[in-house]
C-alpha cells in the first residue's frame, strides 16, 4: 500500500512540475505591471523601477521561472504583492473555509446521490427515475451563482433562516454558527452534483442488477434489501468512487463562484482577488494548490479502488 502511494506520488512529479510552469505562464500572460499597481498612482518612474527591481520583475522571464521553481523546491512560495503576508500564510488562512465548504457539500452529495441513484435503478422507469434524470439535467443547465443569489433572497433576506454572507470559523464560534454559515452554500453546491452522481450510480447499478449472481442471491433467499444494498451496490461502487473523485474536483472548482455569492473568505475568493490585482506570486501559488489538489484527489481515488475492488492491481 505504502509503496503504491510513493510510486504514484513520484509519477505525479512531472505533472505537478508542468502545472507549476503552466500556472507561471498563465500569470505572465496578464498584461499590466504589478510594480505600477504597488507603487500607486502618483509614484514616479524611478520608484516603479525600484519596486520592479526589488520584486525581481526586471529579470528575464526564464530566470524568474527558474528561481520560482527552485524556491518552490525549498517550500518557499514567495510573498503576496498586495497582501502583507506570504503566499503560504494567505492560503493557509483561507484553506479551512474552502475545505469545510467542499467537505460539507461532499457529505451531502455522496449519501443523497448514491441513494437516489440506487432507487432510480431499482425502480427503473418510475417517477423516481424520471426525477433523478431531471435533477441531473438541471444540475448542468442552471447557473449555480444565480440559484445562490435567489436562495439568499428567499432564505436569508425574506425568511431570515441563514446568514446571507460571511464565514464563522469552527473553533472560534462553535459548530452551530459554523454550520449555519456554510449549510446554504454547501447545499447549493451539492444540488448541482447530486443528479450527476445519481445518474452515474444508476447506470452502474443497472449493469450489475441484470447479472446472474444477483438472480442467484435472490434464488437462495437473500433478502431483497441485502441483495441490492450489499451484492449489487458493492459491485457498482467502483464507478461511484471515480465519480466521487470528479465531484470533489468540481466542488472545489464550483466554490470559486459560490464563495463570491456568499462572501466566504476561501481560496476561490482569494484567487479571484489575486487575478484582478495582478498579484503574480499569489496567483501562481493558489493555481498550483488547485492543481496539486486535483492530483491528490486522483491518487486517493486510485487507492480507494484497491480497497473497494480486490481485482484491481497496480504494478
Amino acid at each position: 500500500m505504502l509503496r503504491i502511494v510513493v510510486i504514484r506520488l513520484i509519477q505525479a512529479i512531472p505533472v505537478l512540475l508542468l502545472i507549476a510552469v503552466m500556472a507561471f505562464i498563465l500569470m505572465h500572460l496578464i498584461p499590466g505591471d504589478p510594480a505600477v499597481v504597488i507603487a500607486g498612482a502618483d509614484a514616479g518612474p524611478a520608484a516603479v523601477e525600484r519596486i520592479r527591481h526589488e520584486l525581481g520583475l526586471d529579470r528575464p522571464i526564464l530566470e524568474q521561472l527558474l528561481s520560482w521553481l527552485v524556491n518552490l523546491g525549498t517550500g518557499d512560495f514567495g510573498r503576496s504583492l498586495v497582501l502583507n503576508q506570504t503566499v503560504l500564510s494567505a492560503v493557509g488562512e483561507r484553506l479551512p473555509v474552502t475545505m469545510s465548504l467542499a467537505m460539507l457539500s461532499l457529505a451531502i452529495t455522496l449519501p443523497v446521490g448514491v441513494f437516489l441513484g440506487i432507487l432510480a435503478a431499482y425502480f427503473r422507469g418510475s417517477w423516481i427515475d424520471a426525477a433523478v434524470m431531471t435533477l441531473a439535467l438541471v444540475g448542468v443547465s442552471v447557473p449555480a451563482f444565480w440559484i445562490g443569489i435567489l436562495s439568499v433572497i428567499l432564505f436569508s433576506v425574506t425568511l431570515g433562516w441563514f446568514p446571507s454572507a460571511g464565514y464563522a470559523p469552527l473553533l472560534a464560534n462553535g459548530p452551530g454558527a459554523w454550520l449555519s454559515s456554510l449549510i446554504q452554500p454547501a447545499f447549493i453546491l451539492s444540488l448541482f452534483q447530486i443528479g450527476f452522481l445519481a445518474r452515474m450510480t444508476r447506470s452502474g447499478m443497472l449493469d450489475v442488477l441484470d447479472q446472474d449472481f444477483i438472480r442467484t442471491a435472490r434464488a437462495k433467499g437473500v433478502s431483497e434489501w441485502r441483495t441490492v444494498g450489499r451484492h449489487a451496490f458493492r459491485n457498482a461502487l467502483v464507478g461511484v468512487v471515480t465519480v466521487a473523485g470528479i465531484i470533489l474536483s468540481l466542488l472545489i472548482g464550483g466554490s470559486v463562484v459560490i464563495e463570491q455569492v456568499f462572501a466566504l473568505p476561501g481560496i476561490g475568493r482569494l484567487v479571484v482577488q489575486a487575478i484582478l490585482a495582478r498579484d503574480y506570486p499569489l496567483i501562481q501559488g493558489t493555481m498550483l494548490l488547485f492543481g496539486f489538489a486535483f492530483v491528490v484527489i486522483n491518487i486517493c481515488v486510485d487507492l480507494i479502488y484497491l480497497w473497494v475492488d480486490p481485482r484491481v492491481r497496480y504494478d
Partner: protein
Amino acid sequence: MTDLALGSNRPLELAERRRFLALRKLAAHRSFKIGLLIVSVLVLAAFIGPWLTGIDPTSMRIRNKFKPPSDQFLMGTDNYGRDVLTRVLYGGQLSLGIGFFVALLSGIAGTIVGVVAGHFRALDAYLMRVMDALLAFPAILVAIGIGAALGPQATSIVVALAVAYVPRTARVVRASTLVIREMEYIEAARVSGASNLRIIVKHILPNCLGPLTVQLTFVFAYAILAEAALSFLGIGPPPPAPSWGNIIAEGRDHAVEAWWIMLFPGIAISLAALGMNLLGDGLRDVLDPRLKIES
C-alpha cells in the same frame, strides 16, 4: 482502376444510408426534439425579437426605473429604466454568440491537438500531458486568468473559454483517432500510398465528427453558463451592451427590491443550456451508441 472505383462506391452508399437512418432516429428522439425546439425558439427570439419590439436596449428613462413586470414592461425595468425584456432579447445575441464561437474555436483547436496526438504517436505523450495539466485547473479559473489577461471584451471571453475547454474536445478527438487509425482500411490506404494528410482528412476526421459534435453541444452549454459566471465575477462582456450574464451581474445589487432584473436572464440562460444539453443527449444516443448511458 475501375474495379477500385467500384469498390469505393459501395461504402459510400452505405455511409449515405447510415446518415439517413441517423436522421430518422434523431427525428424520433424525444429529448432531441425538445432541445431543438427550445434552442430554435431562443435563437429566433434573440435575433428576430429585438427587431419586432423596436426598443433600444441601452436607452435609459430614469422616470421608469424599477417598474415591476406589467403589460407595458413584460419583464419590468432596471435601475436605469431600461426595458428588461429588450435587454434579455439582445443579451441572447451576445450570450448565444459567445456559446457558438467558443464551441467552434475549441472544436477546431481540439481537433488539431487530438488528431495530431492520436495519429503521430511520438507527440502524444507531450500534448496530452499539457492537456492534463490544463485540465487540473478548474475551467472557470483558466478562463478568469486568460479573460483578465486579454481585457474585458466579448472576444477575450470567447478565447478564454475556448482554451479552457480545449482539453475536453482534444480528448474526444484523440480517443476516436486512436480507434480509427488501427482499422484495416487505414492500413490499406497507407499501403496504397496515401499521405498522412490525406488519411487524416479523408478517413480520420469524418469519423471523429460524431463524438466531436456531441461534445461541442455540451461545450456550448458550458460556455453559456461560464459567460454568466465570468460576468458575475466582473470579467464578462462589459456593459452597457447586454449579455445574459452581465444583466444578472448588474441586477444583483438590486436583487432584493427588483428581483425581476436578474430572474429573467437567469431563466433564459437555464433554458438555453437545457436545450443544448437535451440536443447533446439526443445526438449522443444516435451518433455515439457506445457511450449510451440510458438503457
